[in-house]
Each structure stands twice: as C-alpha cells, then as structure tokens.
C-alpha cells in the first residue's frame, strides 16, 4: 500500500502587503507517484514547491512531509528533509567554481561522504544524463541543457524520496526539455516521487501524468485520461 509522502492540510500562504498566494489548499501525494504542477505565471507554483522544500513557511495550516508535521519545524531539522527531498531549479543553482563532477558530489560531500567514495556514483550519473566527457567542465562553459542535466544528476545522487523540479525545461529547447522529462520518468520508475512545476501545457499532454492545477489561490487535480478535474481532493 502506497504511503502519503506529501500532505497539505488547509494550507494558506500570504505575502506581506496582504497578497494571498494560497487559501486553505489541501492535497496529498502518494509515494512513487508523478505529478505535474501547472498554472498560469504567478499562480504560486514556485511558492508551493518552496513550501515543500521548507524554503518558506505557511501562514496557516499543516504540512506533513515523509510522515512528519513540518509546519513548525526547527531550523536545525531542515537539512534532514532536504537530504530526502531534492530540488531541480530553473536557474540550475550550480557552483561556478566547481567542476561538473564536484557539483554533482556536493550533496553527498555535505553529508560527510568522502569524495573518493562518491566519485564513481557521480561519474555514472553524469553518464546517465548524457554528460560523459564533461566531468571536469565548469558550468560557465556549458549550455543551459547541460547545466540542467548536472543539476538533475546532483539532485538524484542522494537517492531522494521526492524530487521537485521548478520549470526544469524553462531554459532549454523543447527537444532537450522532453529528454529531461524522460530522465524524471526513469527516476520515478525507480520509486522516487516526482513533482514537476511547468507552465508548458505540452508536457502534460506528452507525458500522461496527473496535474495539480493552481488557479485563483486554489488547487485542483486534473486526471490525464479523461481530463477530469477534481476540486478539493
């Protein structure tokens, strides 16, 4: 039986100046599922991912991650969740002074794993994302698609339970975007829960996965087969 890995319960998020982003949204994601997070620009896709990645705190409501209530989490407990929930950023967030290989091993190095122990794993991952031969390349010398692949390899090296991706195809061409999605799909088949935020409506059509749709501070679920929309699920 699949467990709930992400659970939002009546969560609201307001920004200073009475700007409401979400209002009492509730949803649950089961372990090993793949979802798109869609909605117009400014609908709050990034904010929702940030709430899951604990980069923001809700104004109201409860969030449960990996079975724990994280609504009032202590700062010192955040690294534990971030080691289980990886994030692929639209702007890659690579360290320019490190090589591709060094960037990929970074999350493990931060957990105290010696470089030599994680080197082989990182080489395999870079090969997997199609960057064989770019191990010693520095990010500024690479294309957007290559940088995004490094970011994906870095995100999965810790074998996370959840992978969040914020517009991962936003800075790459359509063909590269689809290839990146195949990588996410492959990860999902290995058991990782994937949530991909995108404003590109073609991706949910190409990949038949359910969508969490954000609109006017509310969330709804769009199932792929029938295009059926479920509100307040």
């Amino acid at each position: 039986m699949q467990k709930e890995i992400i659970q939002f319960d009546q969560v609201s998020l307001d920004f200073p100046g009475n700007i409401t982003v979400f209002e009492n949204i509730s949803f649950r994601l089961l372990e090993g599922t793949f979802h798109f997070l869609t909605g117009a620009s400014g609908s709050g896709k990034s904010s929702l991912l940030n709430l899951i990645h604990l980069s923001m705190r809700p104004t109201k409501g409860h969030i449960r991650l990996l079975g724990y209530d994280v609504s009032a989490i202590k700062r010192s407990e955040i690294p534990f969740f971030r080691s289980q929930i990886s994030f692929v950023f639209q702007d890659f967030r690579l360290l320019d002074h490190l090589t591709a290989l060094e960037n990929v091993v970074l999350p493990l190095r931060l957990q105290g794993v010696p470089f030599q122990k994680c080197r082989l794993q990182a080489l395999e991952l870079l090969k997997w994302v199609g960057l064989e031969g770019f191990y010693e390349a520095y990010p500024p010398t690479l294309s957007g698609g290559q940088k995004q692949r490094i970011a994906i390899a870095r995100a999965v090296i810790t074998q996370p339970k959840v992978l969040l991706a914020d517009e991962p195809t936003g800075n790459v061409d359509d063909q590269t975007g689809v290839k990146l999605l195949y990588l996410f799909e492959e990860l999902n088949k290995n058991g990782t829960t994937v949530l991909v935020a995108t404003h590109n409506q073609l991706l949910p059509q190409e990949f038949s996965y359910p969508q969490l749709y954000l609109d006017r501070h509310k969330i709804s679920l769009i199932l792929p087969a029938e295009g059926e929309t479920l509100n307040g699920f």
Partner: protein
Amino acid sequence: MASDLPITKNPAARYVPWTVGLMMYLASLAAFLFIVGFHFFGSWRHDLLTHVTLEIPKHSLLTSTLSQNDLDTLILKIKDVVQKTPGVTHITVISPQMGQKLLAPLLGDQQIILKNLPLPTLIEIEKNPEILDVSILEASLKKIFPPLRVINHQTHFSKIFILGFSLEVFLLTLMSAFFVTALLTLSFATRTSLLIHKNIIDILSLLGASDAIIAKEFQSNARTMAIRGAGTAYILLLLTALLGFFLFQRHETFSFPFFFLNHLSWTLFLGLLVPLLMGFFMIFSARLSIGRLLKKLDHA
C-alpha cells in the same frame, strides 16, 4: 576538493592575516613593555621606600679642613648613630674612591676628569620604612655633623608612582586596543566573507547543508587567518629580539639582554602565548559572528 566555498578568494580578506599578525606583534610588544615597566617600577618603588642616603659633602667649611683620619672617625660616629637607630637593616659606605669606580664605565678613559670630580662620601642606609623615622635620624646626625645631607628617596616616591602607573595603564590600554582591533579585523573579514558568499551559502543550504557545516567552512578559514597572523607575529617578534640583542650587546653598560635572560619565562610566555591566546579568541569570535550572521541571513 579542499573546500567547497571559495572563501580564500575573498579580496577583502587577502591582507587580514598580515594585519592581524602586525596587531599581535604590537600587542606582544606592549605586553612585554608592560612587564618590563612593572619590573622596573617595582624595583624602583622598593628602592625608594627602603633606602636613605647620607651625603658628607667634599667641599664645605667643615669638611675641607678634615684630614682623612678625621673623616674616618666622623664616618664611624655616623655609622654608630645610624646602627643604633631602630628600623635600619643595612649600612654601606661608598667612599669617593668607590664612587670613582662606579662612574668609570660611564666616563671611559677620562681619568683626569674623574680624579678632579668633587665626589662626596655616601652612606647608603637600608631601612624598614614602617619603623624608621627619617626626620628623627636626621636631627640626631645633624648634631654630630651639621653639613650632612640626608636624602630621603621616599619623597620622590609619589612622582615615580604616578609616572609608572600612568605608563602601565597606557601600555595596557595599547595592548587591549591592538587586541580588540585584531578581533574586529577578523570578525569584519568573516562577516564580509559570509555576505559576499551569500549565494553560495544559499545553494549549500538548499542542498541540505546545516548551519554547522557552513560555519565550519568559515571557521576553518578564520582559523587559517589567525594561524597565519600568529606566524607573522612570531617572525616579527623573533626579528625584534635578535635586533634588540644585537643592539644591546654593543653597549656593555646596558644590562637589557640580561633582563631577557633573567626573565626568560616571561619573555617566552609573551612571545609564544600572546599570539596563541589572541588566535584562540579570534577563532571564538569568528564562530560567534558566523552563528549570528547565519541566523540573520535565515535562508530557511
């Protein structure tokens, strides 16, 4: 991968080890001068409080007619009175001949000048300042020999005390100022480094780095800067010691090198421990700065 943060490339921190080293060096020198001052002023204080000098002038109406035998008799009489006075612990007679010997190293080969100097006969009295009343002794001695001068060094004590105390306070203030400046310099370098690398810190934090790991990176850098600073201070102190030894060795009349040798433990303490102690405080202060700043940045 030695470090995941390029913090050593912080241009603001490039000269910090040398600045800190110079501060440590100056603080050590100030501390050393404080100890030297403390020793000398302590010694002077003791001498001023426990010594009275009696002077039998060479040229006075009474002494110019005295033969050597008469002078010897007079000295014996004076010694007798002094010895019977309560509170006197020791008497030393310094004859004009002995005075000449004491002055010889200062005047060099000028023996003619030395022989013609109107040196008085001096009687050095060591006393217990709490028992001996100098005015009573002076009155008794004046009855024997009116031109006798009684020099009570205790009267200079207050002036020397004020001078010594002021100098010691000044040196302590100077030492503290160098110490605080070194601390602030390192703290400033650490804080600017944290702010300059805020983006990197954010990324590391998003990848699951705890504050402790990030702080460790910066602390390690602060430690390196403090160690380099201490190394610079040691080199400067060693050069100063060698220069001092070389300069003072050329002047036999100065006993400064012997001060170094007699107070070797103090010299070593200051030379070795002051930079170490400052380095320790700097690392601790950097740790506090990092902790505070990471909380302020709050990338959660």
